[in-house]
């Protein structure tokens, strides 16, 4: 059996993991990273010009490994070489990482859109500048939660691994959860909203992404607005539960923990199903409008 201190610490780690997961997914949605990225990349070839941000920085696990590792390393250097307290050191680590994150995001978007020149797709600089802030902001919150997790494990739970390595490993984990859980909510549903419920898109329709937003032309920020209501919190919940579940064997015994996990998973399945059914019945399919009705043609 584990003690109360460990349960408290694990609960705090679960909470931090929830924040990390939610903001990681929001960050990947601003840049259409991972799964939706190939569809955004394909759109110019299908002559669907867009104002989405095309942030192709490897897959989410490895890019988050870098953010976690850079922020964790700088935090560790600030704490050990300059004697700063953890919060001040973490603020510097996250700040430095945000700059590197923005550099990678900018080059990814500029490179991909410039390589679509054959189809005549222009680079919109306002798309780059307006999306960089949310990317750095959401990424910063996620990274801060990742290094806080690693710090708790390193300083309070006395994990034998050094802080930069723990931060890198937590980065891979949050990236993997964000990629597997979060992408489900910003894949077919959102990018193919003008097909009935976006589900089961045929290969022939690939690249024919939804270009109109609730108001004006859709950009990646509209996707965050959409995902922040369900996809992001669910990603956070998934990651938080993974961290929290790991101690349940100590609380309920081995089989008790398995049964408790099954019950929670079943509950999540039922809630997801009910919400989707309710949304489909209440809001119906996508209603197409002319582009002139939602914005003035230039």
């Amino acid at each position: 059996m584990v003690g109360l201190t460990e349960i408290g610490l694990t609960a705090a780690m679960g909470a931090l993991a929830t924040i990390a997961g939610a903001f990681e997914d929001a960050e990947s949605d601003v840049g259409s990273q991972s799964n939706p990225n190939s569809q955004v990349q394909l759109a110019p070839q299908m002559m669907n010009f867009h104002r989405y941000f095309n942030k192709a920085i490897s897959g989410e696990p490895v890019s988050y490994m870098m953010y976690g590792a850079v922020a964790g390393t700088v935090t560790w250097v600030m704490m050990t070489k300059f004697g700063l307290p953890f919060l001040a050191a973490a603020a510097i680590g996250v700040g430095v990482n945000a700059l590197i994150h923005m550099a990678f995001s900018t080059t990814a978007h500029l490179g991909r859109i410039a390589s679509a020149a054959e189809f005549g797709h222009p680079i919109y600089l306002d798309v780059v500048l307006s999306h960089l802030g949310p990317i750095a902001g959401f990424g910063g919150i996620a990274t801060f939660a990742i290094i806080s997790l690693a710090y708790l494990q390193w300083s309070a739970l006395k994990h034998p691994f050094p802080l930069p390595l723990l931060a890198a490993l937590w980065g891979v984990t949050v990236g993997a959860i964000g990629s597997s859980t979060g992408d489900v909510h910003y894949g077919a549903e959102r990018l193919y909203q003008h097909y009935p419920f976006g589900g089961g898109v045929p290969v022939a329709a690939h690249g024919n992404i939804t270009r109109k937003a609730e108001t004006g032309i859709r950009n990646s920020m509209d996707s965050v607005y959409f995902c922040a209501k369900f996809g992001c919190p669910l990603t956070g919940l998934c990651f938080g539960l993974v961290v929290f579940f790991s101690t349940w064997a100590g609380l309920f015994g081995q089989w008790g923990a398995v049964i408790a996990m099954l019950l929670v998973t079943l509950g999540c399945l039922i809630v997801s199903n009910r919400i989707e059914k309710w949304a489909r019945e209440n809001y119906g399919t996508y209603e197409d409008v002319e582009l002139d009705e939602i914005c003035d043609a230039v």
Partner: protein
Amino acid sequence: MLARTLLLSAVAPGGEEEEEEVEVAVAIPPWKLILAGVASGIVGISLAWVHPVIPAIAAIPVIMWGADAVRRVAGYGLGTGVPSIGYMGLGGGSVAALLAVAMTNVTYAPIAAAVGTVLGAAIGALLGVLDRRVIKMKIPVMERCSTEIVAAGTLALMCLMAAVAGDFTWSAVYSRVIRTGIIAVLWVACALSLLHPYNACLGPSETQERTLSLAAECGSISAIVAGLASANPIVLIAGGIAWLISFWKFWVYTKRDAADVVWTGVVPKGE
């Protein structure tokens, strides 16, 4: 093991179809990049004891060579496999780099670095043979590029380790890079630097100059990361200057290659 290998080759897509060589347009021939990469990497590691800024900056041509090798193999339509081949490069590379560092106990740093690079190349060649003969990927340049990618990954990782440790010896690298966990950030910085340039410039209008300028930019970020990890202001400033120059070059090539660069606009419906 043998049975498993045979089974793998049996279930892999049939090998009857002809492999086609794909023409990849180059402004700088590969042999020049290989020469520059190997020379600068080994000289940089050898002079790590003079100042850590030397191996940190020497990593940039090595990364450009590795990124060019990724570009040549990924031109065969790897798509989502571009990031994977970067991790593969550093996966094999980290083993060879660690062995090279351990060898400094018995030999000089330049010899250890050279042996590490050759070992990395051998691991890369083995991976390339497995990819082409067992998994049956239809890429004629797979063995050659895989060899180059892993060798470049090994050399780049050794450069950054030497830059953080301040010397290419087992005691310095073990106490300042491996035991502190900084090897994780160096690993991922190298892996992203190898795969990001081609991955970011993926598309029909990709050009080698733009991809290589982005590789130099990623290499500069790796140098900055080494400067941050060792809290060395000179490495940090040198990396920053290299970043400014390489990012400017990338921006110039982006403006040259892009269909149009505009501040804002309503997207047209393409024809």
